[in-house]
């Protein structure tokens, strides 16, 4: 306990040139160096980008081919058993035995995390209540719905009051309502319970709802790491649709210094803090064309990442 508190000044997660190779062909992580501070961080990337590999290396489930990583200031390879007392992990896949009750299973996992029996029982009851499991917690897990199983998975990761919670695709397999409930729960754990989290997802909307920071990896490399606020600031876009002379309007707006791109019949103007509404109106009037649509909307985060990925590839 003391040791881990003493390491509290260190970043939550830090990786140095982390590389993981499966066989000779597959490079899952490619000299990945990143730093994650306290708070709720989203880990985003396409399927196969290396998210799960990164999480598994941080948890000591996999050994890196080269490079290193620290978690809470401790080396994941040499100090794993010590630091993992303070880490909770909710895997992507099914991991629950069907023939025991949620209560029995979570108590057992709490004890494996070092909690004495009485504390394990007490915290299990509290944690299952926090994740929204009540009377059903005495039933065998095999009788649960997918949503309830996800809650048990979350409870077993939370029962020992970890300093860091790692959630690997926590909404996988849930219907939209279940997804919403799970995201609310995760947000509450981060904000109200004050537990730092690293949550992987390939759905950016989810990350945006829950996280303060975002780390984007692609093909095992760091694409970007920033606050959600910075990302969303870049995402504002003005959609303009006119009935004629679209190309001419685009050229005029670009000449005025705006970043404009065409998407079919639409013109997309990156706002980036600017407010070119009057300018657009004036140019449309000047061209004498009909204005069908002016709409402020947002890029999808995917678009930003695609641009980033292309830039990286060019380099």
């Amino acid at each position, binding site marked *: *306990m003391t040791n881990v*508190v003493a390491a509290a000044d260190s970043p939550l997660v830090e990786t140095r040139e982390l590389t993981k190779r499966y066989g000779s062909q597959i490079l899952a992580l490619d000299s990945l160096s990143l730093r994650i501070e306290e708070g709720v961080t989203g880990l985003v990337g396409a399927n196969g980008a290396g998210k799960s590999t990164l999480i*598994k290396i941080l*948890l*000591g*489930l996999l050994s890196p081919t080269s490079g290193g990583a620290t978690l809470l200031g401790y080396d994941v390879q040499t100090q*794993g*058993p*010590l630091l*993992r*007392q303070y*880490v909770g*992990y909710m*895997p992507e*896949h*099914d*991991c*629950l*035995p*069907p*023939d*025991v009750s949620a209560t*029995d299973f979570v108590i*057992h*996992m709490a*004890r*494996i*995390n*070092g*909690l*004495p029996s009485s*504390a394990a029982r007490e*915290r299990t009851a*509290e944690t299952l*209540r*926090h994740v*929204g499991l*009540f009377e059903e917690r005495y039933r*065998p897990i095999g009788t649960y719905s997918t949503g309830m199983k996800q809650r048990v998975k979350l409870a*077993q990761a939370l029962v*020992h*009051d970890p*300093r860091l919670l790692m959630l690997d695709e926590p909404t996988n397999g849930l219907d939209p309502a279940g997804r919403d409930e799970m995201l609310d729960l995760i947000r*509450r*754990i981060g904000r*109200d*319970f*004050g*537990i730092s989290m690293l949550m992987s997802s390939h759905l950016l909307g989810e990350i945006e709802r829950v996280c303060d920071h975002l780390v984007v990896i692609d093909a095992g490399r760091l694409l970007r790491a920033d606050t959600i606020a910075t990302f969303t600031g870049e995402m504002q876009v003005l959609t303009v649709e006119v009935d004629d002379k679209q190309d001419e309007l685009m050229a005029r707006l670009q000449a005025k210094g705006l970043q404009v791109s065409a998407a079919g019949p639409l013109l997309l103007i990156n706002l980036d803090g600017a407010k070119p509404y009057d300018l657009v109106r004036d140019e449309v009037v000047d061209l004498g064309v009909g204005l069908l649509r002016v709409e402020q909307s947002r890029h999808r985060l995917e678009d930003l990442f695609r641009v980033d990925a292309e830039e990286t590839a060019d380099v």
Partner: protein
Amino acid sequence: MSEQAGPSAGLQTGIYDLGYRSYDGVRLGRAYAVVSLFTYSLRAVFGLGRSWVSKLFPIGLAILALVPALVQLAVAAISPGDFEFAKPENYFGFVNIVLALFCAVAAPEVVGRDQRHHTLALYFSRSLSRTDYVTAKLAGLLVALLIVLLTPQILLLTGNAVATDTVVSYLKDHLDQVPPIVGSALVVGAMMTSLSLAIACQTPRRAWGTGAVIGYFVIATALGSILLQTISGHGGGYALLISPFAVLEGAVYWIFNAAPAVDSDVERAAIDGIYYLLAAVGYTVVGLAVLYRRFWRLGV
């Protein structure tokens, strides 16, 4: 560490709204985690904390292993001192099949279940190492098997003592039997645990694990017996060491310093008893190596 978060205003779901309490109590670490996993595994072997179906086979087989002792005690009660067929040194011969069945039921439960339900990732991402995990599992089945092995022996010893007029002096006279009883149970328990776990851990599927364990004990024993009969001279005797039941029977007789049963394979093999013990140790070590290696390499 997480802060104390009181009930938050504005949350609609009232029953959630109890506030989160951080845990500042003691964390007992890795050794405690191993002990916790051991007790959990031991309970799981007997199906404790599970449905009655899970208890049926292990507890049924454990009771079956008591039958020779109970019959012996019944005989002794009717006609004291006349007929002693179940003795500490030959007890294994009566229950070897029952023990193999017990292992076949229990081993897949101990090492296949977490593979089957993908629970290993939860263990290995905690303070347990893979070696710790296997050690706790091994200890769980070993202790379960020792309970099954030693209970009839204790029953025999105390039952026979009660059947005599002089309980205390009977126990004193037979005190020298305690070390070989415990020693032989350890040898039998260690080898059967090690081999059955090494076999069962190769598959997450319970039925295959159970079938493979039974198959190994039955086929290897039959093979040893056939080789003993077909190979002439000392070669046949040593070939019997392929048979796990013969190895254990021979080792137990050697530990008790007793003569093997008349007309048994072990008697016919006519090799020095120490070879059985060495073979038992060898099998145990090989089983352990296979078992640990499997979990060191297993992807989760």
